[in-house]
């Protein structure tokens, strides 16, 4: 550690004002502060500070994503070997999936972080930590068969259009990871939906059906999966979204560390449950008849509500607003799912829509606070 510290100290002058690589100071600082939390002490305001900073917050989210990521890797292999009707061990499945998923994660981080560094250097501000989370989220919400170049293009679109044009982490309107998915979904639909994208195509099979549960229900097909499959996640789907159990482990960490808002999670699931229950009563087609509690287990709902809806920047910012925001995400997700079988994945669109509406919700919540204050003022002066 001392060696590393010396190394940084030795070259720091090159990046300081007047140094040879002055322009690259943000990049240098990003690397340095990743290795060492700087020795700065408080200069004004409170003399003591919590040890939490954005790096720690973002890393906590990454930690919370690890169970879903590891399980997703295993599930890729499991789905492949099962559909190819081959014998395999759990280790085989994991190793197979690992080598499928790892390149996606690497591409996502390399492309995304390069752009982040570029913008930081261009604008002379610090590199924000937001992409640490986005970079892992993006591969987890993609089908495993997506060509890496589509992934890369989606990342470029998401980081530039979804975030940097607004001023970077903290300023963006919509969730960058979902922006990436939405971009890929509408630009390259054949790679993003259908029966064959969720499982790597077995070489020995001419035709196989790897459709997702929602896809099957949308077609009016019956499904062969039990609720246990759905809960534990041994079903086809985007890499990280299938196992509700693993997502809940992540959710527990996020709630314990107070990184994510429990209000959004609770109201999100509540909204989805109520909507699905209403559809159950209606029961006009297979998707409507699908039991409301199983609706909560399939598709990207759990993943979306736990990891994407709770993004503090794009969510509603007031406590009351969070209840409304989360509830509507759940509600809309199921509604889109049921009413439009062409987009069986309603969560993505529901969250993106609510991201856009969130500031309006906040506006009315805050306006109520302002009105109360103004009313008091009028009463006093009258």
């Amino acid at each position: 550690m001392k060696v590393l510290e010396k190394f940084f100290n030795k070259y720091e002058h090159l990046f300081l004002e007047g140094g040879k690589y002055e322009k690259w100071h943000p990049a240098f600082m990003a690397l340095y502060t990743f290795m060492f939390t700087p020795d700065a002490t408080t200069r004004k305001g409170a003399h003591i500070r919590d040890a939490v900073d954005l790096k720690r917050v973002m890393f906590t989210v990454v930690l919370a994503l690890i169970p879903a990521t590891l399980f997703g890797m295993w599930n890729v292999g499991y789905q492949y070997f099962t559909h190819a009707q081959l014998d395999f061990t759990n280790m085989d499945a994991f190793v197979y999936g690992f080598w499928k998923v790892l390149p996606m994660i690497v591409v996502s981080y390399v492309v995304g972080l390069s752009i982040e560094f570029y913008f930081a250097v261009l604008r002379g501000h610090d590199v924000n930590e937001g992409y640490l989370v986005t970079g892992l989220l993006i591969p987890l919400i993609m089908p495993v068969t997506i060509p890496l170049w589509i992934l890369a293009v989606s990342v470029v679109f998401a980081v530039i259009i979804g975030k940097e044009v607004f001023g970077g982490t903290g300023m963006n309107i919509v969730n960058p990871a979902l922006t990436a998915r939405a971009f890929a979904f509408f630009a390259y639909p054949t790679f993003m939906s259908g029966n064959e994208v969720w499982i790597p195509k077995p070489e020995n099979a001419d035709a196989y059906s790897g459709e997702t549960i929602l896809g099957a229900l949308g077609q009016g097909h019956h499904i062969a999966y039990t609720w246990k499959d759905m809960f534990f996640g041994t079903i086809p789907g985007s890499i990280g979204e299938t196992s509700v159990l693993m997502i809940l482990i992540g959710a527990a960490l996020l709630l314990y560390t107070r990184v994510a808002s429990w209000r959004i999670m609770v109201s999100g699931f509540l909204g989805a449950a109520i909507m699905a229950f209403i559809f159950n009563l209606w029961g006009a087609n297979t998707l409507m008849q699908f039991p409301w509690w199983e609706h909560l287990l399939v598709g990207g709902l759990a993943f979306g509500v736990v990891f994407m809806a709770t993004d503090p920047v794009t969510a509603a910012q007031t406590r009351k607003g969070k209840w409304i925001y989360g509830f509507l995400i759940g509600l809309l997700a199921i509604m889109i799912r049921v009413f439009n079988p062409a987009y069986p994945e309603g969560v993505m669109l529901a969250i993106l829509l609510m991201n856009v509406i969130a500031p309006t919700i906040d506006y009315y919540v805050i306006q109520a606070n302002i009105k109360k204050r103004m009313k008091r003022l009028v009463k006093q002066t009258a």
Partner: protein
Amino acid sequence: MHKQVKISKGLDINLKGKPALKISQAPRSSKYVVRPTEFYGINPRLSVRVGDHVDAGQPLFYHKYIDKIKFTSPVSGTIEDIIRGERRKILKIVIKADPQDSFKEFKVSDPEQLDKAQILDLLLESGLFATIKQRPYDLIANPEDEPKAIFVSAFDSAPLGVDYSFALKDKMKSFAKGLKALTKLTSGKVYLITDGRKATDFDKMEGVEIIKAFGPHPVGNVSVSVEKFEPISKGDRIWTVNPADVAMIGEFFETGRYNPARNIALAGSKVKEPMYYSIKTGADLSAFLKDKLVDDDVRIISGNVLTGSNITKDQFLNFYDNEVTVIPLGKKPRFMGWLPFIGKNRKGFYKFGFSPKELDLDASLYGEERAFVMNEEYEAVMPLDIYPVHLLKAALLGDVEKMEQLGILEVAPEDFALVDYINSSKIEAQELIRKGLDIMQVEIG
């Protein structure tokens, strides 16, 4: 029946180095200092020159715009130096103390028998008026204003806060007399905020409204009770006085002397034996602190860890403070200090609220400033009915109308001290609110 105020949002930080309940007399310092910069919102004009001799209670300077407001010497002695900064701004007046104090003698009187104008005159003449601050804007009150109410908070809920029921236990009579004087200054009520968890002598005070406060810090802050009982609207003035200063006002009426001696808490994990000391405001602390600290790698604070001022270099007790806190400085880079759950850097403050173990916190910033991201944190420590993130953003932009609508007139920087502490973006909330209040004052006054 006492009034009550209860909050659940907030945070008690359980710090190491709580002062023991015993008092010792600090030796008389050879030097005392009065810093005009401590009196927020005034423009000082000097009444003394270097070499002059002053008695305790004799004016050193006055407020240029309201020349009735005078600031007086805490001790008798000779003006040794007047130190100026940029643009000849007066930074401090250094007084070399006489071995024995001689006092400027004022009339001994019972505030009961005096009217408002007489009390104000005495307070202004003796320099005691400077102890009265006003809301909104959190600065020195204007004697021409008619305050809607006066609040005294005898509950210091901040980390390592002063236990006023102990620090003032021998001065309860003076305290009662000081309260009497305050009741004459307002046509409204005088409120006394006390710790709801225990019965103290404060509960027996007469002629005032007693508020029992329950909940985590910042429940002892005046703003919390003001919001509940006397909400501030445009044009309203609320005055606030610290309980030690109330006792000092009472003493002044009893003795006819301005004598800012008080029992301060010397607290913090870097203090060998944290306890209370009797000392005068403005006292040079360097000799006093020398053998009382564990080592030199410290941050010395006049006041508490959340709102106090850094006096590591310039060790004088501030006018408004009843506490000196010494904590580790913690100036060192930390290898991957951002990793959660690992190593000594782990403070466990992910979870807000009760922390059973005493914490030894240092003055490290633990990160770099970022944009607002984790908005949930801010609300969790804000018991007032305002939206902290939105107010801070309005203050950042200097948007007068928005700030007013969002309630900036109801807050003081100290109400955002926990936001400073908790937020992961390292936003300097107290500073932003101070700037916002300054803008408001210029714009609407």
